[in-house]
């Protein structure tokens, strides 16, 4: 199993001829991801690492009807349009790597995707990996190993850090989702948790949060309500960040006293979640909760 992404995923890369798009197509192919087509308007007919390129997603899907997933590398100005195109083509999972998409545009295509039954990951995210099965994203594949730990994370590099720490301790991951750092994203903690709850392969979940917003608090409420029943370990970045300052991206900001580190940790602890003080404590905490 795994969530969202597995060995049956057939992937279209939107923006495949760009610098990032072609580089990561290569890395994803090397990882074993089944990429069936690429799309760049006006560049139909080319090939990128053996992947055929089309002008439009609908042409790509016509030629490769098995396609069910898309990853978007197109520049911010055209990314929303690319998302609509993927959604309208009936793809079920769309991973938006692009950063700097205007938040109004993200808000709209995420609403649209929900209406059409498409799951959006991102924008401004590292993507998703089900180790040993497929990688649709830009994370370094070698830091993850197949296993039974789910990771959902608002932070890119921190995910690699934590994934690697878990891997080094001999555990592995079912699916790792980098949900993205923007204020408005397609899949939140709680939405991802619904998926992990139903995935038999996942035995425990790591939540990697950040200051800002209330996604961690909502996750805590969900656990409290008994809607997520697997053991959870969390890490929240930004313990020492001052309020009112954007820490790198728009999502991570403590505003009007909400979204603080303390508030998040308290909410999670009240829900019975073990909160690590550093990323490197995560593997030990995982072993602890899995023993019970």
């Amino acid at each position, binding site marked *: 199993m795994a969530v969202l992404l597995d060995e049956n995923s057939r992937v279209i890369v939107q923006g495949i001829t760009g610098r990032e798009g072609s580089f990561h197509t290569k890395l994803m192919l090397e990882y074993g991801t089944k990429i069936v087509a690429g799309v760049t308007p006006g560049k139909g007919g080319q090939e990128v690492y053996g992947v055929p390129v089309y002008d439009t997603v609908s042409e790509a899907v016509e030629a490769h009807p098995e396609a069910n997933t898309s990853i978007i590398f197109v520049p911010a100005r055209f990314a929303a349009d690319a998302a609509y195109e993927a959604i309208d083509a009936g793809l079920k999972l769309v991973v938006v790597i692009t950063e700097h998409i205007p938040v*109004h545009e*993200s*808000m709209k295509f*995420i609403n649209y995707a929900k209406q059409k039954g498409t799951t959006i990951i991102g924008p401004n995210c590292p993507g998703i990996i089900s180790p040993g099965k497929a990688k649709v994203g830009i994370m370094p594949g070698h830091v993850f190993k197949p296993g039974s730990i789910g990771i959902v*994370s608002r932070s890119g590099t921190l995910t690699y850090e934590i994934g690697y720490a878990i891997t080094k301790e001999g555990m592995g991951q079912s699916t790792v989702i980098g949900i993205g*750092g923007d204020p*408005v994203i397609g899949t939140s903690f709680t939405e991802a948790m619904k998926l992990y709850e139903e995935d038999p392969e996942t035995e425990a979940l790591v939540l990697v949060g950040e200051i800002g917003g209330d996604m961690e608090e909502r996750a805590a409420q969900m656990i409290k309500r008994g809607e997520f029943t697997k053991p959870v370990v969390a890490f929240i970045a*930004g313990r020492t960040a001052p309020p009112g300052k954007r820490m*790198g991206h728009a999502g*991570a900001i403590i505003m009007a006293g909400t979204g603080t580190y303390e508030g998040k940790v308290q909410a999670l602890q009240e829900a019975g979640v073990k909160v690590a003080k550093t990323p490197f404590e995560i593997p030990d905490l995982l072993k602890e909760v899995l023993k019970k």
Partner: protein
Amino acid sequence: MFEYEAKEILRDKYGVKVPRSVLIRKGEDPIAKMKEAGLEPPVVVKAQVLVAGRGKAGGIKMARTWEEVKEKVEELFNKPIKGIVPKLLLIEEAIPHDVELYVGIVIDRSERKPVILASRYGGMDLEEIAKEKPDSIVRTHVDPFIGLKGYQARLIGKKIGLKGKALGSFSKFLTALYNMFMDYDGELAESNPLALVGDEVIPLDARLIVDDNALYKHPELQKDILEETGEYTEWEIKARRLGLAFVELDGDIGIIGNGAGLTMTTMDLVYEYGGKPANFLDIGGGADAEHVKTAVSFLIEFPKTKKIFMNIFGGITRCDEVAKGIVKAFQELGEVKKPIVVRLAGTNEEEGRKILRENGIEAFVDPIEAVKRLMEL
């Protein structure tokens, strides 16, 4: 965006009735300009600064006579508001009113929809309202594709205590504010206070914050001048000009990381081991040697830093590129006294560490080891 700009947009593009006013620059005669515009005291003189909480900081003055107009204008042009001296003042007719309402629009992260916040108790900050009159805040989500419906606006008006014709006026105003929020990719559109004058609502203040990522769609809007917001320190402004995501802090250890989460975690780690970060500096994903060089050089020059801790986990970022950038920065700056400890892991990590060591820079795989070493220096 300055108050007067937001009001101009509301008036000219959305047909909202705003108070009559004149805008004056330092050195201009406020009396002459007021007479030209047909304005008479009593008026309100308002510093046009981007500082939040301008009113409380003394940036808004009532002037009841011509004499007072002169006085207040003189006073405001010479008084820094949270460190910012205004370049422009708005002189606006004073509008007698009984009730001050609050209305603001932001995007709700979890609903992914615009949410309208309204309260009977305007005049104070939303945070204060939330603290003092939490039940007075009416929250209404809007479907971003359908838009704000007239009846929704009237319903909000009703819930904050408006009646009869005032409902129509409020609904018209709120629709204008919503349309401005949507058309201009607003992060926030707000009127506080929104005065109730008889059956009519009139925005005494108006704010619009536009999403930086969407500024390219609105070339007519000037990017807010960093110096004038009062939000940024001198070095933060310098960093932004260089394209660096930098936040100044109180300590003395320079922090660089890739990715906001990892960089914050690096700060936390330094604290944990007894250090105090001087800053947050995220080089982002996929930084090349040149960008790394800029970041490292910047932090070496930043006077608060005594030593530098760099924590990189390479995914899209390649450790060899990072190493090259660090080396370049130190080479170009010549004799640098500030020590640096680098933790490099992920894509091409070994190559990267090799480059560093060859150039006499300490490189670690384990961040805990690295931070311990840092604290010894």
